[in-house]
Every structure is written in C-alpha cells, then in structure tokens.
C-alpha cells in the first residue's frame, strides 16, 4: 500500500499547490490556467479511489467545458493585464465568516462519513452501477436536474436574442 499512498499524496500536492496559485496569483489569467492542474489532480484522486467513470467525466466536463468558459470570461475582462484590478483581497471579515462556515460543513461531512478502510477498497467498473442508480433509485433528482439545465439553456438563448433585437432597433452596440 506504500506506493498507493505516495501517488495519492502526489496528486494531493498538485491539487493544493495549484489551488493556492488560483487563489493567490496576482494575475487573473494565471489563476484561470492553474485550475487546469487542480481539475487534473482531482481526477487523479478519483482514479485512486476507483471512481474511473467520475474521473473521466471530471476531465471532460470541467477541463473541456467549464474551464474553457472561465478562461473566455477572464479574457473578456476589461483591462485584464492590469494587476491592480485583479485578485485583490476584499472584505476579509466576511470572507473569514464564509471560510468558517464551509470548514464547519466539511468537517461535519468528514466525521459523519463511514470511510472504507485500507484493504476494503474494491476496484470494479462503476459505469453500469452509476447508470443503474441514476435511472432507478435517483430518477426524480436526475429528471429535476435535466429540467433545470434545459431551463438554463432556454434562458441563455432568450438573453442572447434580446441583445440582437436591441442592436437592430436602437443601433447601439
């Protein structure tokens, strides 16, 4: 189990280091690109926990989709290369409150969860299991999420269409 631990710690180090870069870098673009390594490390941890399907989906959705959108948004930011406007620390008191709240929730989860101990970890294909659970036990939440996503999609389409109309009638940019 020694080498297993080493690999897990390497991935954990990648996650912590790149997440620190995301949070503390003075350059917003660096923060965005550092997320790539964070997501990669999380996918690695998923693989070590025998969640193979989740690891691949993590890369596919977060790196291929969400990260690219974040980078787009960052690049469209006004005066992006201006260090003064990016990543300032604002309102430390409120920030500390949120931090404490999140830590409390995380600690609660950590102490409540029934962790599987070393040696109990079973490597097996999880794809079919996840499919079964989604379409049988958790069908209702799954459908609700689908409807939510559909609503978001239609909302985005509506917002974009309004902009085009304003451009045609008013001639404003």
């Amino acid at each position, binding site marked *: 189990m020694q*080498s297993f631990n080493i690999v897990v710690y390497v991935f954990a180090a990648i996650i912590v280091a790149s997440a620190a870069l995301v949070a503390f870098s003075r350059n917003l673009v660096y923060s965005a690109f550092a997320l790539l390594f964070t997501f*990669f490390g999380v996918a690695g941890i998923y693989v070590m926990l025998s969640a193979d399907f989740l690891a691949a989906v*993590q890369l*596919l959705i977060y790196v*291929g989709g969400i990260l*690219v959108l974040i980078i787009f948004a960052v*690049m469209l930011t006004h005066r992006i290369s201006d260090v003064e406007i990016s990543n300032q620390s604002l309102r430390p008191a409120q920030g500390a409150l949120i931090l404490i709240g999140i830590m409390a929730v995380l600690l609660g989860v950590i102490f409540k969860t029934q962790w599987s101990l070393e040696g109990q970890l079973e490597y097996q*294909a999880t*794809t079919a299991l996840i499919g079964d659970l989604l379409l049988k036990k958790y069908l209702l939440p799954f459908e609700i999420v689908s409807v939510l996503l559909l609503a978001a999609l239609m909302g985005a389409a509506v917002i974009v269409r309004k902009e085009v109309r304003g451009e045609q009638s008013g001639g404003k940019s």
Partner: protein
Amino acid sequence: MRYFADWIIENLEFTRAIPSEYVYLIIMVVGGLLLLLFVVPMAGALTFVERRVAGKMQSRIGPNRVGPQGIFQFVADGVKLILKEDIIPTAADRRLFKLAPYIVFVGSFLTFAALPFSQKLIAADLNIGILYIFAVSSMVVVGIIMSGWASNNNLSLLGGMRSAAQIISYEVPQILSVLAVILLTGTLGMQGTIKAQGWAPQHWFLFHNPFAFIAFFVFFISAVAECNRIPFDIPEAESELVSGYNTEYSGFRFGLFFLAEFANVYVISAVAVTLFLGGWNTPFYLPTGIWGLLPSAVNLAGLITFLIKTFVLVFVCMWLRWTLPRLRVDQLMTVGWKYMVPIAFFNLVGTAVWMLVWGDKSIAALLGG
C-alpha cells in the same frame, strides 16, 4: 500490457525479489516510451506523406530531394526544428508561452494509452476507454487557448479563440454520434467494441443499421473539425491569421504543435476504425491455451489490418484537405449547430428505436434470417 506484466511476474525468476508494484511501474514507463517511439516517427512521416500527397493532387512534385523519393525529408525537418533558435517574443507571457506546447502535445499523446493496435497490443484496455480518449483530448483546447493568449499577438489570440469555439461546438455531435455505437455494444471499452464486430464488412457497425451508417459520417466530419484541419481550419487560416495560435512559435515548440496535429489525425482515424470499421478483426482466430500467449501470426495480421484501415482514413483526411475550400466562421458554426447536432440527435433516437424493435440484430442478420 496488463497480461504481459502478469506473465513477467509469474514466469521470470529475477522479478520475484522485487515487489510487483515496481514491476508494474517499470512496465508502464517502458510502455509509454514505446508508444512515444511509435507516435513521434509516425507523426513525422505523416508530414512527409501529406506533402507528397498534396504535390500529387496539385500536379506538382513535392519534397523529393532527401533520400529516395524524399522519404528522409521529415528527418531533416525534425533536425532543423530542434536546432533552430527558440525565439520567445519580448511582449509574450514567458511562462505560459513555454508551457502551452507541452499541454497540447500531452493532451494528444495521452489518448494513445487507450488506443488498440491488435488483439493483444494495447497499452491499457480501460473499461471507460472511449470516454478516457475524449476526456484527455479536451486538454488540447486549454493548451491552444493558452498559446494564443501567451503570444500577445492579435492574430494568435483570434486563432486560439476560434479554435476553442470550434472544438467545443464539434465535441457535441462527435460524442452524440459515438453514443449510438455505445448503445449497440453496451460497453465503453475499446477492445470490447471491436470484439462486438466481425471481420466482414456486413458485421461492422458502419453497416449495422442506417443510423450507425450516418453516425459514422457525423463522427468523422466532427473529428476532422476537432483536429482543426481544412475544411475546418479557421483557427490557422493562412490567408487571414498568418498561422493562427502557433504564429509566434519557432523551433522545437513549433515542432510539438505540428506533431500533436498529426498525432491527432492518427487518433481520430484509429477511433473511427475501432468504433465503425471492425478494428483488428481478421478471419483468423487466436488459438486457445498455451499457444494464445505467443506473439502469433494472427496477432500480427490483426495489427496490419488495423494499421491499413487507419492509414486509409488518414489518407482520406489529407484528400479532404487538398480538395475542399475553407469554411467561413459563421458557416462553420451553422454546419455544427444547425446540421450536425440535430442529425446526431436523430441518430441517437433512431438507434434506440432500432434496438427496441430488433434488439442488437444488424441488417445483415435480419436479411439472413
């Protein structure tokens, strides 16, 4: 690779002393190096073949000076790229500029780990093989945007942005068309998908049912678009953007972009062969028992079959590149969202209905009774 590692641990005396984890580790590293030894010369040779094919199609000669018929041209090009000065523009973001080519190359090289070559020859037969290939190749987009941004050049940035928009758009129909095949096999593994097909064309998924037939073309067109090749090469459109996101790169870093592009062409062709064209299936079968472990002629026949099919598709990519004009940006998006995505959805539903009515029987099976 796994069965090979197990065989070594069981049968070779000197490995008993070492913990099996280290044997696996060494074999993984060796396997990776072997793949690299395959990918780099193969991608290099493809650059030469591409230029010769282009020459023939345009009634000119192409490179024919270095070696017989110019076959050592890619070696000369490689040496030139390595020896060339590595220029970093003063205005560029140095760290990201240096990092970007590696991310692009790693993203496309990682996919080779799950690509099958023959019955026994595959680095890792993952049970999520096809999903893994799409997942790691999504890293390429980030690398391309990074190179476009770090170059600090309008044309590069524009190329990087176009590339990202294009890859994200065409990923949708590509994955939807692959889903049709996944429905038919019920597995995400590459070897499992090939085993579900036969050696004869009527047993390939291409001719399994009308929807799978259309799915192949949707998949191949979107895959060509994902590779940023003509007719979908607006990210590097020479007449508009000089060379797009890799304009500022020179020397070895430019070489990495180039290698990644040609490696990607091989990857999409190999995936298409695996999913739709029967993979390594030959009329021969592996003997069972002790003989099945040997590197047999059947295995070699499978390897040759797979490579021939793949390189035929690679040739089709080159053929498209030198015969079709480039699409405009808005045309590209129209093709992607208004035609490819609805067709892919139609295919998915159609395949599901087919399976509801006839199960996993193919047309050939229905006609044959």
